């Protein structure tokens, strides 16, 4: 009865040998009539947007005319979540910043992490054990 094998558990680690940007698609909804879409319409025709699209060839960008609504920028991410940001009445520069936020976000729910470092590797010096401490320094009850 030699050794038996259990199912493998693998954890995804992005960025070891290659980094794949989590943001895959950005959808820009605008309305041709509403005043709140003024900024987004300027942004779409601006040089900044051309440069953004040229630099990020790995992000699919959809322009979607959605009459009768405020303009929204939605980011679609690898973990399946989306990140909508309303850009109503915003001017060109702010919209550019919002686009950068959507691009560089990972799509995870924002929150505080308990530990500063999250690692998949075992600790280098192992789990501390009182029975392995040098007898001269052992804790005396």
């Amino acid at each position: 009865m030699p050794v038996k094998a259990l199912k493998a558990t693998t954890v995804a680690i992005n960025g070891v040998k290659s980094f794949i940007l989590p943001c895959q698609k950005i959808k820009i909804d605008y309305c041709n009539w509403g005043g709140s879409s003024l900024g987004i319409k300027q942004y779409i025709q601006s040089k900044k947007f051309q440069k953004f699209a040229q630099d990020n060839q790995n992000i699919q960008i959809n322009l979607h005319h959605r009459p009768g609504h405020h303009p929204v920028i939605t980011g679609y991410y690898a973990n399946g979540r989306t990140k909508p940001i309303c850009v109503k009445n915003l001017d060109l520069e702010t919209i550019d910043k919002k686009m950068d936020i959507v691009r560089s976000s990972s799509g995870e729910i924002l929150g505080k992490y308990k530990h500063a470092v999250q690692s998949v590797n075992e600790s280098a010096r192992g789990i501390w054990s009182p029975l392995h401490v040098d007898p001269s320094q052992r804790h005396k009850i």
Partner: protein
Amino acid sequence: MISKIIEKKLVSLQLVRGLSSSTARSARNNAFNTVITEEVATKSPQLVTLHNRLRLPGSFKLSTLGRCLTCIQKDNKYPNNVGLSIFGKNLLSYHATELLLMKYPRLPLNVLNNAINGIIGDETLYSIGKEWGIQTDSSTAVEKFLNEEPEEITIGRLRFDNQNKSIESNLTVIDKKNTLTQEVAMASAVKSIVGAYYASSKSLQDTKKFIYNYILTTRHLKIQDMFEFEQPTRELAALCKRQGLEQPVTRLLSESGRASKRPVFLVAVFSGNEKLGESFGASLREAKIRASVNALMNWYLYSSLDVKLPSDADYSRETLKEVDHGIVIV
């Protein structure tokens, strides 16, 4: 690459069966006259972004990428990716086996197979495909027709006969006859991208680099959690006998709280006066079993300092005298 799509709100329609006429053509037979042409493929936003995301070389045409996303279907409009995915699987399984065998030369075969499945199995390739941003095509032919969905958007998505088709909001049809599940389809797409990578670059070295950069090193495998022993003490004794070591003896190193509710015994297995493995236990019996499990893990998970791969350019192991004996058979 900006493309303007008018995404109309979907009108929920009574499905009209068999609208799209399909000539009787066996799914296996790939001799099609309609092939994904390069100029249609370059217009597809999904293909261009996927090509950039994986930093594929210029020789990797977008039409080939389009073919990688065409799984086997009842009425295939374009040639499918079955051959490519089989070829990709061969490339992947060689490199995964080589990596694991050279890193852990004494790994038992069943653990090796599970580990290979952990790195390049369908489940893993499904999550890799999602990370690569491969979108699956879930709209039916009728919805495509009504939305006037252009051809380049359709070929940019993973197309396959889904095993569970959702007709209405709460009704899904599960039809197992030659259909694919989401995992199998996505995995076949990832495998065929690997196969197509060799086809376009025609060099095994570059393909190996791609496999390592985008597939093998993107998963961390917890190999130490994959072992289970049935009679570790007997197996350790058989191992020591086979390797010519002295019969293992379990010794008590230190303990705490023997008379209390939670005793802790630190026990180690020695061959002569060399320690093979040690562990804790709430009872002496548990500690002894855990110590021999630890000793066997120390044996099976041996890894040398300088791991070299046969597929490296400057590889030669003339000095290698002994290959791993094999699994311990009790």
